[in-house]
């Protein structure tokens, strides 16, 4: 299975100014690639799109009926935060479980 890895730039061949020097992580745990199938980024993008769409739909609905207090209160102020949580609960964790290096 293809393993996703954060892309690393090579830096400019201009000595210290090109690469700005190199750094190493002080903790021994390596920069771990996330073993994830190609679909996870689509899942993530879709999740973000759903969250943003919910937000703008909620605000649009509220502003299209500006005097409807009950609608604003129940659907947007109480409903949207709950729907974000449900979205994360049902769809949220997209990374696979990976044990830590140290117990």
């Amino acid at each position, binding site marked *: 299975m293809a393993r996703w890895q*954060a*892309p*690393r*730039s090579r*830096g*400019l*061949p201009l000595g210290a100014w090109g*690469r*700005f020097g*190199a*750094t*190493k*992580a*002080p*903790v021994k*745990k390596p*920069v*771990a*690639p*996330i073993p994830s199938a190609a679909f996870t980024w689509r899942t*993530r993008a879709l*999740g*973000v799109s*759903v*969250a*943003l769409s*919910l*937000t703008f739909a*909620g*605000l649009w609905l*509220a*502003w*299209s009926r*500006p*005097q409807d*207090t*009950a609608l*604003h*209160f129940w659907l*947007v*102020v*109480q409903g*949207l*935060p*709950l729907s*974000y*949580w449900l*979205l*994360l609960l049902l769809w*949220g*964790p*997209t*990374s*696979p*479980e*990976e*044990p*830590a290096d*140290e*117990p």
Partner: protein
Amino acid sequence: MSPKAWRWRVVLLTLLVITVLTLVMWMADAMGASRTLINAFFLVASIAGYALIGMVCRTSNYPDYFVAGRRIPAPFNGMATAADWMSAASFIGLTGLLLSEGLLGNGEHAGGMVYVVGWTGGFCLLAFLFAGRLNASGAITLPQFLSQRFDSPAVRVTAALGAILCSSVYLVAQIYGVGLVASMLSGLTFELGVFMALGGILMCSFLGGMRAVTWTQVVQSVVIVVAMLTLAVAVSWKTQGHPLVTLAAAQSMQSLQARVQVIENDPAEHATREAMRMRIEILEQKIADPAHARDLERQRIAQQIRHALEHELPLREVQRLEATPAWREPELGRLVQLWEQEREQLRTALGRPVGFQSPQVGGFESVGWRNSIALVLCLILGTAALPHILVRSYTAASPRQAERSVVWALFFIVLVYLTASSLAVLLKNVVLSDLVGASLQNLPEWAQRLRLRKLALLELNDHNQDGLVQFADISLLSDYLMLGVTEIVKLSPVFTGLLAAGALAAALSTADGLLITIANAFAQDMYFLRKTDETPPLKQVMLSKILLMVVALLAAWVATNRPVSILFWVTSAFSLAAATFFPSLLLGLYWSGMRAWGAMAAMWVGAGVSAYYIGINFPAIQTAFHLNPSETLWWGLDPVCAGVFGVPAGFLAAFLGSGLQRLLQSRL
């Protein structure tokens, strides 16, 4: 005890301690203990408890100090994230904000709804986009992750500066909030309140770093949730006779809307508003020709003082006349400033909705709609990019655990927010039915108490001089109104103590997280930039601890100068975080073409544009440079929406910077 069981026992123990303390204080109240004593007990007991956890969790072990050993399970990491995130502004301020500004705002500025939506929606972006991948990086700070990604210490220094900027703005507001809560509820002076809280913060973060902060925050999250739920249940019981808060809000909503209609159609309310409009016109004439207006007013006051002395009126009357700004203020510029302030206060009061909706909300073409959309974007992107929240991704045991911890965090945050918004409905109902229409000579007892506080939570101005309170006469200090809930609903002082403990936990937990982020940015990302391998870990931890103390003292000193508004600074911090980190993080994680130059340009340009917009619209800077507020606002957007300009500028800079670096790479 199994290795896992003790964690849940910490939570259960916290619940038990809260219950026992509350019962003890209840008995003390029944035996006649004063309100101040009960509040002080809750504050001191909380700080002592957090300090104790700090001491138990003390460590100088490198991974424990910086990332709590990277082994915090999702539920506890989520609780710590929730406490880290729920600041004084959201715990104390949200109810008051919804109550006084309404849901959609006044047609010019955004209302409370935007804050609830933005502050919770951002967690979806955090979980989907960043949490798992940051955890997998194995870094200990956000700047370190960016420098690993781009193989560049310059990126690390830039990111560290950005983290210090965003977190400092936020930290000062939190310490200010802690000082206010401590001084208002325990009778201490503001400065002493700040330094007492500082002691609590330092005992946690100084001794045990991230490990102590994490476990303190777990306990603080329990305190916050319990305090908010208990208070809301008590208010619900008192007002509607049952403990179901949301149901009580639904019942109150019906009577509230009926009461709002009566008030909005009341001729006395119209007369008050007309009197306020006339006062605004007079103030505008004075501001247009201040020297002439001052002379005329001084002549009038001199006449009145002569009259008072001749007729031997009480000395208080003479003192009242002499206290008039036009009489006592020698500088014309200062006098104009006072008139302008009064005009703004009157305008704000006129725009404030009676219920939860202002009649001036307007449609999609109004400035209010633009401000709402801009602010919700800033809050969502800012929540996903705040350095002290992102650093919580590193303390989880695995990428999946980091993402799960965001789900847990949002659960606790949503619980508090839904309760806070229901509480706003219940309180508004009480204010409208008890206070509006009351005689100024015979106010409800709670109104008198709130007026007479050292920091008055309620002001009443009888604009139409009819001796009755109209809605437009009421001015509530919305930021801290929550602290007066127990008086408004006539609850036992024990609830004030619980509320104080919750507010303190909210402010301290956020301050702890921010402090450790700033100190680590200084120590790890700037001082030990190139020397992490050759410097012994113990030395790195010790320097971080020293810097932590220096930063805490500096922040406390700035906070004692009393910044203007907690909500303004907190919201500005979100805008700054969104503009500084969101473009570079998103492109850094998901675009292979992103380069170091692009990352640095994104951070500098994003932060620069946002800071510039907040700066040129800041009242002190406008006065110093003689700027006109109507000319410095872009499309009428409020300064706290600065991120809406900073984020696109950051993305553009990232594309240009990366393109330039790739071009040079290919040429050379």
